[in-house]
């Protein structure tokens, strides 16, 4: 039954391709703004690349999170999701998985191309993709908590960002840190392990918080 949730969301995302694509374009544009604002020296760009790509990924995720539950809330399907015989935990997991596949995975795939723009080596590109692949699920999970809490509120996108970005900071630190370590020649392994630990923790606990938040918001 979980697959109905995922299937439904994937089909909806496909039929509204523009949304997912616009998130991707936002990512690309934001990353490209930094060299324009800072200057084209390769050394400088290489040193800021991890932070820039990661922060841009965070911001792009913020855009897509607003859509996670809002649409369903407005047309009444969210209530029905709360009334399925399935544990809400699984329903949330399904929705977040679909959101990750449609909004975050493109970012992860695009990241190496952007990394090349910043002149990083191939090894570092691998670390970049790995760190984003581990870190973006956490963004989706923690972001789902924010999206659930702010359902139906005015200016909910900004509010989600205020609520959720401080909670992302560990992910940012370890994720960008891993890439940075790779650039300066150190092993990114510790960062990656810690990032992985956070990913597992958030997969276990975040859907529970999101379920609680959904019940609160739908009342």
């Amino acid at each position: 039954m979980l697959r109905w949730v995922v299937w439904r969301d994937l089909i909806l995302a496909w039929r509204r391709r523009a949304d997912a694509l616009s998130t991707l374009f936002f990512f690309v544009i934001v990353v490209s703004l930094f060299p324009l604002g800072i200057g084209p020296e390769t050394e400088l760009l290489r040193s800021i690349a991890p932070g820039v790509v990661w922060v841009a990924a965070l911001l792009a995720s913020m855009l897509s999170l607003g859509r996670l539950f809002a649409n369903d809330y407005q047309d009444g399907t969210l209530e029905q999701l709360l009334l399925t015989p399935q544990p809400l935990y699984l329903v949330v997991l399904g929705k977040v998985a679909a959101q990750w596949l449609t909004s975050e995975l493109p970012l992860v795939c695009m990241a190496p191309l952007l990394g090349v723009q910043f002149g990083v080596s191939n090894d570092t590109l691998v670390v970049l993709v790995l760190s984003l692949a581990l870190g973006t699920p956490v963004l989706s999970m923690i972001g789902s908590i924010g999206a659930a809490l702010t359902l139906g509120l005015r200016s909910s996108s900004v509010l989600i960002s205020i609520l959720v970005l401080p909670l992302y900071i560990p992910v940012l630190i370890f994720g960008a840190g891993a890439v940075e370590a790779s650039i300066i020649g150190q092993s990114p392994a510790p960062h990656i392990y810690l990032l992985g630990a956070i990913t597992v923790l958030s997969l276990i606990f975040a859907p529970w918080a999101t379920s609680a938040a959904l019940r609160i918001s739908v009342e």
Partner: protein
Amino acid sequence: MRGDRRVFSDVNFSLVPGSFLQVTGANGSGKTSLLRILCGLLKPAEGQISWQGASIHSLGEEYFTSVTYFGHRPGVKDELTAAENLRVSAGLGGVQVDTDRAHEALERMGLVGRGSVPARLLSEGQRRRVALARLLVCNTRLWLLDEILTSLDKTAISLVRSLIEEHLSGGGMAIVATHQELELSGHQKQRLELAT
């Protein structure tokens, strides 16, 4: 309680198989709140809802295998076709409906040939019919219907009426909140009037 304001109090009733309860009252008297409390979306400030002797709170998700709730909004996704909507909502409720059966059910609801049309191209009343088609395929015992007759024309209303009658004859129960009077032949009817 809505906000810090008490909406209604002192409501007591019980329902047996084959009977139905009509909830009436002026706007703001709390019909929607009552139905939402009954399906578990809302928690009452005081009091308890029991299903077959156990409080619905303790039953958790199991309770939802016995209840179908329809709220104000149709609960239909615009980008999915009518048939897909039906299959998804049935599937989420645990009932597997294949495409043919979905089209059949939609036709019975009066949506002949509309099964493959995206819901956003349907009218409000047609969308409501798509949502209500779920009643044909699900087998839950209790139906909680909140103002579902709005935006339905006369044929649709009589169709819904016959659906409810069928359901009650089969031993099901229904609680319907509506402004309009709902006459169902030959079934035990209770009335609950909520006053502001």
